């Protein structure tokens, strides 16, 4: 029961201590105690409403300022183009251009290729991430695992490393001359170029996997630990082995966390930016300045100063994220209904 409704639900008798104290404090007027009490109750309702308002306001004011308004502004911007007036004197003016920016972005080969790169990345990265984190969590949760706290902490630690530093360190580990890994591979007769056109995607996937594998593993592990142990004991009594328990019982029970991890992984993947940027800095010729849609938007805004185009491509990317989130929730829900 919510505190706001408690007083109102106690009925006409002023039997709550709060009402009694309040009644005792009000000045002696020709009203009965019951009516006084009901008045304080109403006042309490208003007070809780006001309190809820005060507590919620900071968040929603900030949320509006840094989320709602920017979304609206991006939509607005995407409908305008900067036009140079006359011969370019007198500066640029914004001209309404409808969906021109969208058709320009979609018509640009670089933008479309960015989406293909991103699609390739998602197809490799997301299943690896979700399955890998899940497998590690199930291993850690099995009765055979030792030193669980240590494993959990050690696997989680990359989350403490800023994405930019993770990318820097891995790119150094990819760089011939700097890297003991490349050196060891070369002396072992393996010549793999992490910056080549075929090597770039695995290089990026590896950095992202390293950053988030342990984090997602801990989420799965926490969900697994929350499963009622008596359910698992019952399964073992019935003769179910570790495999059966893991896939027949544990997995369906942690569906909620599976949905959450998948959603966050999808949204994170679509924003791919930092890792390829560092790879580009590290000398990869495959990674261009428009390699992913996010890089495309960044370049459009800050190299070409075409804010309309940048806004339109950011909106398209956000739409793709929304669409994929919807698909993920739908798919996982249906799976749940069948199970």
């Amino acid at each position: 029961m919510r505190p706001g409704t408690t007083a109102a639900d106690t009925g006409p008798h002023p039997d709550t201590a709060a009402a009694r104290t309040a009644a005792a404090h009000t000045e002696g007027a020709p009203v009965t105690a019951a009516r006084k009490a009901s008045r304080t109750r109403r006042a309490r309702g208003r007070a809780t409403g006001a309190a809820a308002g005060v507590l919620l306001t900071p968040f929603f004011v900030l949320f509006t300022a840094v989320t709602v308004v920017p979304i609206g502004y991006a939509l607005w911007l995407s409908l305008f183009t900067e036009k140079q007036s006359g011969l370019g004197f007198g500066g640029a003016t914004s001209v309404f251009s409808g969906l021109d920016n969208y058709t320009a972005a979609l018509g640009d080969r670089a933008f479309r290729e960015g989406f293909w790169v991103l699609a390739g990345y998602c197809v490799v990265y997301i299943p690896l991430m979700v399955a890998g984190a899940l497998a590690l969590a199930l291993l850690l949760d099995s009765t055979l695992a030792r030193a669980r706290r240590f494993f959990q902490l050690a696997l989680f630690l990359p989350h403490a490393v800023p994405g930019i530093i993770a990318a820097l360190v891995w790119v150094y580990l990819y760089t011939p001359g700097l890297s003991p890994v490349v050196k060891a591979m070369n002396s072992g007769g393996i010549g793999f170029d992490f910056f080549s056109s075929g090597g770039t995607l695995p290089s990026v996937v590896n950095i992202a996997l390293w950053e988030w594998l342990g984090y997602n593993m801990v989420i799965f592990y926490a969900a697994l630990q929350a499963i009622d142990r008596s359910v698992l004991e019952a399964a073992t009594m019935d003769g179910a082995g570790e495999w059966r328990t893991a896939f027949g019982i544990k997995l369906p029970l942690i569906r909620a966390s599976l949905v959450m991890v998948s959603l966050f992984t999808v949204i994170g993947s679509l924003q791919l930016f930092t890792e390829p940027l560092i790879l580009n800095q590290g000398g990869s010729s495959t990674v261009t300045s428009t390699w992913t849609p996010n890089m495309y938007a960044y370049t459009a805004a800050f190299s070409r100063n075409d804010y309309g185009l940048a806004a339109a491509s950011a909106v398209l990317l956000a739409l793709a994220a929304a669409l994929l989130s919807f698909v993920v929730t739908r798919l996982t829900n249906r799976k749940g209904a069948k199970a």
Partner: protein
Amino acid sequence: MTSPAAIPGQRSRWLSRTAVNGTLLLSVLYTLFPLVWLVTAATKDTGGLLSGEAFSFKGFDLGHNLSQLASYNDGVYFRWYLNSLLYAGGGAAVCALVSVAAGYAFDKYAFRGKEKLFGVVLLGVLVPTTALALPMYLLASKVGLVNTYWSVLIPVLVNPFGVYLSRVFSASYIPDEALEAARIDGAGELRTFWSIGLRMVMPGFVTVFLFQFTAIWNNFFLPLVMLSDQKLFPLSLGLYAWNSNTHAEPSYYPLVVTGSLLAVIPLIVAFVSLQRHWRAGLAAGSVK
């Protein structure tokens, strides 16, 4: 991996155990390897780094690297360090307070449209933040906030997921009876929140603070878009700027590597010492 435990025999059980723990150990080697490299590489001079022998102790030069770091460009590195502490510490403290207040209100009060409003918060979790950075930059330049501390601080005061977590924590840490008792004693609603609610939900506050601190400390895209004055840079952006010089001038390598190591240490210490809190946060997020 694991063979069914139902199969009798000590040997198969022993094999399964070795396979399970061996796999976990391998994955730990994977996660720790770059960190170990970072530690040993930070002790090398440029030549030692470029020879690719970071794991040997040849050319141990940590002291020199640290003094270089402290003196380079009038000690700009430690200025970045202070900036990062300010952005992450200040931002996370305010964000945690704002989130806990909102989460508490969602949990403890009944008002019209509550679940719809909470739905908005949940939708906010799904918004890709990098898509907001560009319009935010343009808005900030309109109001003259670009390239100021505020341009990086204000956007990180909001974390919808923090509100979600706070609601879960409020429900599990603050019993309604405690609030009722405070009301009976005549405490006002806000006072009740401040002196009872906030104190009881403190572990949740620390959790939200820790995650937001990490998110801000690791934030790169927003400062990249907003800041051009080196004096305002956080560590992430400063190291990025240095890294862009390494190709032309390899002597930047030790600076970047040693600087990266120092930048990682506070978070590693925080995560090792606050294990209960991040475990609680990830558990609360996963069970619902």
